[in-house]
């Protein structure tokens, strides 16, 4: 069937359709068909914190159970831990707890900050020297004792790590960047002897 419209009429009808098609193509290409919410980043997003690690094969003494502390000439023990943290700028603290009792919590016996050497493996190490000949030596009482090294890359409340940061999103969601705490423990039995 042949169209009865004149060529002029066809041209007048096609012109708006062409413009409409062109506008549609521009809109799709520009991605502005649906209005989007604006999200502005105020800075580089904070990297999620990674936990420190006690280098287990280098803890001293290597044996977790130490019998007869105070017998013979064994009057002094050095406890030490080496720590690795992939976040090289983290402030790492090592707290030494002696006979920590969760029912009657007390503070750390001693606390060290590990020097930052710009490497994941901190060259600095936390060493606790216990000498039974010293006044008020904390392990002098005969019997079993618990020695713990608590390594944290954040502030501790009691012995619980506090998150590094918490972000509350507009929708009510919460993103927590956690802080971490890792421990190593030794069981020491002190015996009465000639050290005191």
């Amino acid at each position, binding site marked *: 069937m042949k169209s009865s419209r004149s060529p002029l009429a066809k041209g007048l009808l096609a012109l708006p359709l062409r413009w409409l098609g062109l506008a549609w193509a521009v809109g799709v290409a520009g991605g502005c068909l649906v209005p989007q919410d604006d999200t502005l980043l105020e800075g580089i997003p904070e990297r999620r914190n990674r936990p420190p690690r006690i*280098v*287990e*094969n*280098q*803890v*001293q*003494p*290597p*044996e977790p159970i*130490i*019998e*007869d502390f105070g*017998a*013979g*000439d*064994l009057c*002094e*023990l*050095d406890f030490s831990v*080496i720590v*690795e943290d992939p976040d090289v700028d983290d402030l790492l603290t090592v707290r030494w707890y002696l006979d920590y009792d969760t029912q009657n919590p007390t503070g750390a*016996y*001693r*606390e*060290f*900050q590990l*020097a*930052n*050497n*710009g*490497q*994941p*493996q*901190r*060259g*600095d*190490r936390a060493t606790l*020297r216990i*000498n039974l*000949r*010293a*006044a*008020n*030596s*904390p392990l*002098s*009482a*005969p*019997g079993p004792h618990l020695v713990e090294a608590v390594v944290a890359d954040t502030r501790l409340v009691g012995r619980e790590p506090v998150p590094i940061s918490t972000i509350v999103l507009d929708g009510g969601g919460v993103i927590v960047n956690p802080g971490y705490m890792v421990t190593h423990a030794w069981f020491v039995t002190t*015996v*009465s*002897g*000639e050290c*005191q």
Partner: protein
Amino acid sequence: MSRMGLTLLALAVAGSGCAYLPDSPEESTLVCRNDAECAEDEVCFLDGCGNPGQHIVVEVTPNPKRGLHAQDFPVENLRPQQNLELFGPATLQGRVRRQTLLPGPENSSTAYSSPLSVRASGESLLIPGVVRRHEAHLVPDNGGFQLSVGSGSYTVTLLADDPQVPPASELRVVEPGKAVPLDFLLPAPTAITRLTGKVVRVGSALVEADLEVQALDDTLRPLSQRVPVVRGTGDFLLALPPSSAKLEHVLVQVTAPRAELLVPQKAFTVDPRPGVTAPLELGDYGEPVAVQGRVVNRDGQPVASASVYLQGKVGGGGQFRSRTVTTDMEGRFELLSLPSHPDTPLTLYAVPPPGTSAGITLQPTAIPRGGVTLRDIVCPDKVIASGTLMRPEGLPAAGVRVEAEPVGEVTGWPLPAQGTQAEAATDEDGRYRLRLDPGEYRFDFIPAENLPRVSRFVTVLPSSDLEVAPFTLSKGRRISGLVTISDPELAGPTPGIPYASIRFFRVVNVEGKPSAVLLAQTVADSAGSYTASLPTR
């Protein structure tokens, strides 16, 4: 390993500077405050001016969990690239046999295959004061045993789980990578010197507490194991080596195994030859009594969180130490003690916590049998030790961590128990300040940036405050290298030993005494590479 292999290994080690220290270190007398006071190529160390490349011993601990313990090597002419090639594990290994007293040399002993502990305690051969201790509880395989140790000089003690086997001790020197033979021959059960007896309080009255006894020789070396006293009868049975039967006397020490038992410790001189002793009387040490008091500082203000305990001689001649208690917010305490000996008061120790201005105090305290409320215990002020630290270029060194580790006591004062950290890192003027009890200390200065750590020995006397002479940090030079092991069976997937601990010491004579000062410590990375910063000019 073949002879050729051993020769090549020795050459490689010598080539990398890992030869044994041939000469005793020279004595240094020059006291200095900064490197500028020393000769052109010297550094001001704790012991005076010295060449920073000499008298250095490196301790490398590859992996104690795998039995690769510390190895020490002197380093001559320390170079910027200092690879450390290690030996395999050093071991004490041998057999434990027990005499049988059967006729004939072939049957005179049998393999001992019951559970036992082997303990090696000693010191590094090259680094004075570095103590080493290794222990294993094991069941010998047909009498055979092996204990991995670090290099050092050791007293090795075998303690069988069976309390009727007397302990045996041997001395051994272990060099890196060496397997040192060590055999123990335990006496036959019939040859053991047995010593029986009874522990009583007075007369036939028994002690209402768990007790333990142990026989010692004149040098306080154990002759027997520590065995429990039978609670209901007071009886004990000690097993001593056969040679003890010829001794005119041994010491038998009676102790309480737990702190809450208010029983004195007492040593008795006993003739072991009859095999039976007269009852060991602890004596009339009285009943526990309450002791109350208050700890205050020089201004009369209460000292909270101070530790308080009593120690000394009690009735019957035994030694007693009470449990340690802590003062409350008002400085008050209450503890249980035995009454003091009628002729000798106990000593009361009050130890305020670190960081407070109050210092340790000891005072003779008579404890009557009815208990006592003491007058206020006044603590003296701690001594304030302060000083100034400078950077190598002469500016004040700010942000340096300062720690004081007690290394000895001064006359009339006990050894302080706890190291102390300065209230803050050095300020912008390089000033630091610590509150310390009297004692001998090693001050460690640990810069936050890449400068080497520095140590100084400081004696704190119980007089006025102490101004430590100012001194200057040294420049650092970076040492790096790879830690490897010569034994291919122990090598891992990487060419280096991952996470090896490395410590550099300067070994010198300080006041005529061989001493070691830690210059740097570091840890190898996961590929076995390490870097450290050591002093230089």
